[in-house]
């Protein structure tokens, strides 16, 4: 048997798993309506591809992924689309969000399925697409789109399947494994193929599930014997302890390695998937069925028939609870997820979604209303149980004092919000609640810093521009004065000497002009870059316009969102036109004028070497103009570059935020939504910054052009 490592801390809350394991996986009668939230996963909400009134078949796509981190939604049964509107969804914030509502017709008719029994003949890309198209997300509770997690940048040496299920009460995975181990093994084989056959495949399972362990071992053996799978899978059982099922903790238990702070397991060549996800992958690839149902544990003292149920996604919780003999009067707290990390529901119409692994209808005995928190007695129990080896009590002091520096020093970011510290705290301090609040505040501050930074930069640039304009004016005035003086001097000289042009004079002039020309050509590089940037902006605007139009086209006529979409298209079109205009303006104003300028300058040198007055004035004005041009361009450049930099850093941040999100998911982090919101917000900002670049009006350039025209008039 494989060696396992111990993790620090951990607790042993009463397991309460037996109640829901008395029977096998039970069916739930088909509900009348199915409510499918468009955002059952972490990432961008899916885009509906049906409209109210459409009839759909079981397994038909009703909403497609919108972007890379997003997941498709399918009809769990046949019926008619009743509405696409805001409904209560299961979410810690207890908010409403848009859902596709299907009224089932009771026939449960499937779309045509395309099973891939011979999945080994498929390419990695094809397999990934199957996973993605099936709308599979992490089934352990977090709900990160699985296809994304299956495309790590690093090569993967270890695939870990998480069958730990360390939270009390939940037995969904246990029940699933007991009955469907063979399918799971094939699912693992498929995942291994997608990840390029990692050397090591480990299934981690706690030793409180001996039946499931045996089932898995037997399934692996027989599959290996009859050649059904090529990968060699090891089932590793280890001591039960909460929270050994956290992704980071499981990795530590099975490999002894720690995921570096702020990094993804893929950095260690490790990918971790929940066993429920594996089963969904099996169905998606082998049977060709999209993700339309899942196993959910319904348990708690308020249910007379606790157990594991195979439930269609979108089934309203009251329908499911009704099947399990739910007594509303007894129920004190209705928890979606486990008692350690789940969140409470207060609307019984909220549906079961992809990540609903458990519905815990707890009565007053199981979840007594907590006592008010007492003072921290520094007993240190919290640090003893923290799996991340943090100092929860210190974090608590600093969170209370809003000392964000110290919170960062004490690695608040590494808290996985497992709740072990709150569980043991004798003073019943809601520690995790403090950490969540502090994390939220820190995120807010970070954003404020960005916003204020930007405001300050804007202000500084504005100031700079004002001073520069002032300097320009003074310079021009000075230059004019100088010019006049020179003119007078030349005149005097001409009069007194009345001789022909001095050769040396001409030489000097030509030198000056050549220098000016050199300067012009030296600065040419940057206009070219600018041109490219503007061109890029135009392309981006084109893409966006196309996308918006596409969305509008897909939008059903009677949808309320149609107007919004139309407005969006109009706006995008405006922006696009703007970008195109700017590009042409830039081309004409800058490049052309510069070229003519240099041409003029050389032409003059060749044409009229004797006209000294003209030459002198030309020389002066050319010099001034060049200086202005350069200064102006630098200012513009920095402004544009600023935007560009901002854009680049935003892009990086979006990527980082996505990574964080992914990590959050794997950690079963409760802040997933916050992360998701952050990613969405950043996306919006990125868009804005693109528009800003596209809309960038080079103020100084316009004035430059005027200057040039000015000086030409002089000529």
């Amino acid at each position, binding site marked *: 048997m494989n060696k396992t490592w111990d993790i620090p801390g951990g607790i042993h809350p009463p397991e309460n798993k037996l109640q829901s394991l008395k029977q096998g996986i039970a069916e739930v009668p088909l509900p009348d309506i199915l409510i499918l939230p468009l955002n059952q996963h972490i990432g961008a909400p899916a885009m509906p591809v049906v409209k109210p009134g459409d009839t759909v078949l079981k397994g038909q796509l009703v909403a497609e992924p919108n972007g890379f981190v997003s997941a498709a939604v399918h009809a769990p049964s046949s019926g008619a689309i009743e509405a696409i509107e805001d409904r209560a969804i299961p979410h810690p914030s207890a908010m409403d969000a848009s859902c596709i509502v299907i009224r089932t017709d009771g026939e449960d008719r499937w779309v045509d399925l395309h099973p891939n029994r011979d999945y080994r003949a498929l390419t990695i890309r094809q397999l990934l697409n199957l996973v993605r198209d099936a709308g599979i997300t992490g089934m352990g509770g977090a709900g990160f789109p699985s296809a994304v997690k299956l495309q790590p940048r690093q090569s993967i040496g270890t695939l870990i399947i998480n069958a730990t299920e360390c939270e009390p009460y939940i037995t969904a995975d246990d029940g699933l494994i007991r009955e469907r181990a063979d399918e799971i093994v094939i699912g693992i084989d498929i995942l291994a193929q997608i990840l390029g056959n990692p050397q090591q495949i480990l299934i981690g399972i706690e030793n409180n599930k001996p039946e499931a362990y045996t089932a898995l071992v037997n399934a692996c053996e027989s599959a290996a014997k009859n050649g059904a799978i090529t990968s060699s899978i090891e089932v590793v059982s280890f001591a039960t302890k909460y929270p050994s099922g956290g992704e980071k903790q499981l990795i530590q238990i099975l490999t002894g390695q720690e995921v570096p702070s702020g990094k993804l397991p893929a950095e260690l060549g490790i990918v971790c998937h929940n066993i429920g996800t594996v089963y969904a992958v099996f169905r998606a690839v082998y049977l060709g069925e999209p993700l339309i149902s899942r196993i959910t544990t319904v348990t708690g003292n308020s249910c007379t028939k606790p157990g594991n149920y195979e439930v269609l996604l979108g089934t309203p919780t009251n329908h499911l609870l009704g099947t399990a003999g739910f007594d509303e009067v007894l129920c004190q707290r209705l928890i979606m997820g486990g008692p350690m990390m*789940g*969140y409470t529901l207060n609307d019984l119409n909220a549906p079961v979604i992809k990540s609903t692994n458990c519905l815990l209808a707890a009565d007053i005995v199981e979840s007594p209303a907590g006592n008010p928190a007492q003072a921290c007695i520094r*007993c240190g129990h919290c640090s003893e149980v923290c799996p991340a080896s943090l100092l929860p009590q210190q974090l608590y002091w600093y969170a209370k004092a809003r000392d964000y*520096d110290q919170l960062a020093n004490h690695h608040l970011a590494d808290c996985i919000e497992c709740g072990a510290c709150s569980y043991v705290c004798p003073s*019943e301090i809601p520690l995790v609640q403090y950490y*969540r609040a502090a994390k939220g505040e820190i995120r807010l501050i970070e954003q404020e810093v960005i916003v204020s930074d930007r405001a300050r930069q804007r202000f500084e640039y504005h100031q700079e521009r004002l001073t520069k304009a002032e300097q320009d004016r003074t310079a021009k005035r000075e230059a004019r004065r100088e010019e006049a003086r020179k003119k007078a001097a030349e005149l005097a000289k001409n009069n007194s000497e009345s001789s022909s042009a001095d050769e040396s004079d001409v030489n000097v002039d030509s030198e000056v002009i050549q220098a000016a020309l050199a300067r012009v050509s030296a600065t040419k590089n940057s206009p070219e870059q600018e041109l490219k940037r503007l061109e890029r902006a135009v392309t981006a605007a084109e893409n966006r316009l196309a996308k918006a139009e596409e969305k509008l086209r897909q939008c059903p006529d009677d949808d309320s969102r149609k107007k919004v979409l139309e407005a969006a298209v109009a706006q995008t079109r405006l922006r696009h036109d703007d970008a195109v205009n700017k590009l042409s303006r830039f081309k004409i104003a800058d490049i052309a004028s510069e070229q003519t300028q240099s041409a003029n300058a050389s032409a003059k040198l060749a044409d009229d070497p004797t006209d000294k007055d003209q030459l002198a004035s030309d020389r002066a004005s050319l010099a001034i103009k060049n200086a202005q041009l350069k200064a102006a361009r630098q200012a513009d450049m920095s402004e544009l570059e600023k935007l560009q930099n901002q854009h680049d850093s935003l892009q990086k941040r979006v990527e980082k935020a996505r990574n964080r999100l992914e990590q959050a998911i794997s950690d079963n982090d409760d802040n997933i939504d916050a992360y998701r919101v952050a990613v969405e917000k950043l996306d919006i900002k990125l868009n804005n910054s693109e528009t800003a670049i596209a809309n960038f009006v080079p103020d100084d350039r316009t004035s430059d052009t005027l200057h040039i025209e000015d000086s030409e008039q002089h000529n």
Partner: protein
Amino acid sequence: MALLRTTSPHLHGPQTTQHVMQQLLLATVPGLIALSWHFGWGSLINIVIASCTALACEATIVSLRKRPAWFYLRDCSALVTAVLIGLALPPLAPWWVVVVATTFAIVIAKHLYGGMGYNPFNPAMVGYVVVLVSFPVEMTTWPVAQSMLPDGLSTPGLWESIQVVFQFSGSAVDSYSSAYHSIDAYTAATPLDSFKHNNGLLAEQFYDQDAWFVGGRWAGAGWEWVNLGFLTGGCYLLYQRIFTWHAPVAMLSALSIMAWLNFDGGSSVSNGSASMHLLSGATMLGAFFIVTDPVTSAVSHTGRLIYGALIGVLIFVIRAWGNYPDAVAFAVLLMNFAAPFIDYYTLPRTYGHEKYGLGKKASTSQQSLDKD
């Protein structure tokens, strides 16, 4: 049905602060019984006076701070402080000694520092030291153990004890009280003290001569049983997982090692054997009820090992070479000072970090400060 909306976790472990404190109180019982058995009613009276004072002080201060008094009294922490003071002070000490010690402990050492959880020093020990320094005579006068009394005499009964403690006037009582305080038969210095001033006798000789050690070879009559009583209570608390073994075991080991290293087999300047040090004075009370006070000790396991060990060393040093007969209170208070430093240097290594201890300064809030 009104569904509760709360955040996770939705479960809570069995241990509450109140429960911890109640267990502590319960665990003092064997020691208290031993004390009462050997030294009479004094300790019990101490405890009663201290408890009333403590509860009154706590209630007053908490209501002055405009907090619900009942909620704060409920955690029993004031009671624990009171009981520890009652056990630590000499039985039959005048009532005002007890009141002063307790008031000081609750008002100054606990609430002036911000109340429960914020106090850097162990309140009971602060109270004890204050009266030890202020009233040295009363504090160094211990009644002798029952077994040491000459035939015909016994430890005073409850009523006599109360009279002694409250120093009732009235001729009969007066005479009894002054008799009690003056009669050598009833009071004596503690065994630790008398061992120290052994008049140049070899340990063996001294043991044979001194009444304390005639009655109890290990650490003086009665005392060894008192300490064994507290040891029993401590083991119970360990078994109940009220605290971890680190601090007490470290303290007792350090103390025995120091004693063993310095024990010369019993010469006239001997510092006493390890068993004497372990079982005399406030050693066991300190090890299991004072050193384990979470509020004022180091936090991590390593930190507690260091904290406990240093207390053990200090106790021996003060006992052997200092001027005070017992040293637990001073050693604990000194180490209370050091606890934050110990904490700082024994920070754990967070998951996913290579270095132990704190991370770099965060830049975000720094920036935001710059902004402001």
